[in-house]
């Protein structure tokens, strides 16, 4: 199928951001897990994990700003807008397709096009991760780097403790997202097609 239609979905800036972000998040997850389970493995010592986590965190902060501004100044941001119409039905339709339809020969309910880069379910998760979860880990991460910024006590709990819990819980959510994200990427023209797309920029329909 050499003549398949293809769309230039991922401009260079987005691919660079995605690459940095992917690498950074993976490092943060590995060092994060090793810190919170207090592993002092010979592979990543505790202090190395801490330093690596801090530095990568700052890199991710910068790369997030790059992504955020990029989505404001380019047209890419509009792919993340969620409309009130079909707020619940659309993602449900997509979920049914993944759970049932795709095994029964149905066509995808929301075929991708120049106007639609993400299916509704995908869009919800991307918005959840990029506009809620990542900002939370960044803000709590900064707070943990500068603990004097954190309020001492809230409802009898240490503010530092609550911040740490929120940071690791949302970090865990992002890790779960990453697993699903990678798996879903294998649902494409061929299992590796989407992975090639995010490198080349061209998405095959």
């Amino acid at each position, binding site marked *: 199928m050499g003549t398949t239609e293809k769309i230039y979905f991922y401009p260079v800036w987005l691919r660079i951001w995605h690459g940095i972000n992917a690498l950074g998040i993976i490092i943060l997850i590995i060092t994060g897990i090793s*810190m919170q389970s207090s592993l*002092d493995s010979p592979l990543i010592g505790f202090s190395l994990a801490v330093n690596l986590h801090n530095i990568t965190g700052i890199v991710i902060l910068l790369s997030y700003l790059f992504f955020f501004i990029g989505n404001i100044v380019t047209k890419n941001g509009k792919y993340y807008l969620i409309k009130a119409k079909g707020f619940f039905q659309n993602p449900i339709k997509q979920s049914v397709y993944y759970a049932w339809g*795709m*095994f029964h020969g149905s066509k995808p309910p929301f075929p991708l096009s120049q106007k639609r880069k993400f299916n509704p379910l995908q869009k919800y998760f991307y918005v959840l991760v990029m506009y809620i979860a990542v900002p939370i880990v960044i803000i709590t991460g900064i707070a943990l780097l500068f603990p004097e910024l954190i309020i001492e006590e809230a409802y009898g709990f240490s503010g530092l403790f609550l911040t740490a819990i929120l940071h690791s819980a949302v970090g865990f959510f992002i890790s779960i997202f990453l697993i699903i994200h990678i798996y879903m990427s294998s649902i494409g023209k061929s299992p590796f097609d989407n992975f090639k797309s995010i490198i080349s920029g061209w998405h095959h329909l």
Partner: protein
Amino acid sequence: MNPYFILDTVAMTNGVHKQFDCTDCHSSEYATYPHNGNLKLEPLSTCLDCHGGDESFAKYKFDQIQEEVNKSVHYKVYGENFGCSKCHSQHTYVTTARNSDNVLEIVDNDNKMCLSCHNDMKKYKLVSGHENPKLVEVHDWLPNQELHFRHVRCVECHTEVIDSLMVSHNILGKDHAVKKCVECHTANSRLKASLYKYENLQKRSEKGGIHIVLSNSSYMIGTHQSPLLKLLSFLIFFAVLSGIIIHLLFRIFKK
């Protein structure tokens, strides 16, 4: 006159021995002033002469403390010369760890006992005969050093913790000090014993709120301190993993 020889009378009247006259412990010649300098050499009673084997002091466990001290590095090097008063001034001692409702105050108070020598070049050299290693330098490896020093007592890492004493008195040599973050920053934190005890006392004194009970097992950083979240995260992780595997199998075999 040497300022070290003059007692802080205000501190003394706040101390645990305030009801005693000087001559209750010292020779009657102390009643006159100025007294003979040789009097400093008089034989004095030890703390255990009063506190040892006495039912009314049983809860302080003086005898057990003495046994612990005898195992400590201080006793091994200096023997009998390193008595209780080297750390606990009999003139001004206050039972802060037992009575304070503020952890920071307890930490500060207890650490001052160590620092009175270990952070005082002259005094340290006088006792040990060698230079005092700089505390900030020897603890260079410790992340967030200042924070640790303010919130953790020296003895938490430099003693062998035993549950039955409020403060362990078996001070270990530097080679045996805790150096692994994990020993405190895990579910089985070695600090748990002393923190639990502190919280328990707080509860009984009715100064602490309900949160002391709630935050009982969650004192140190990390979700693994919260067993519920730990369980939840494992459940979610395996649910997602099985979902993916099932979906993948369907993709392979169904189509």
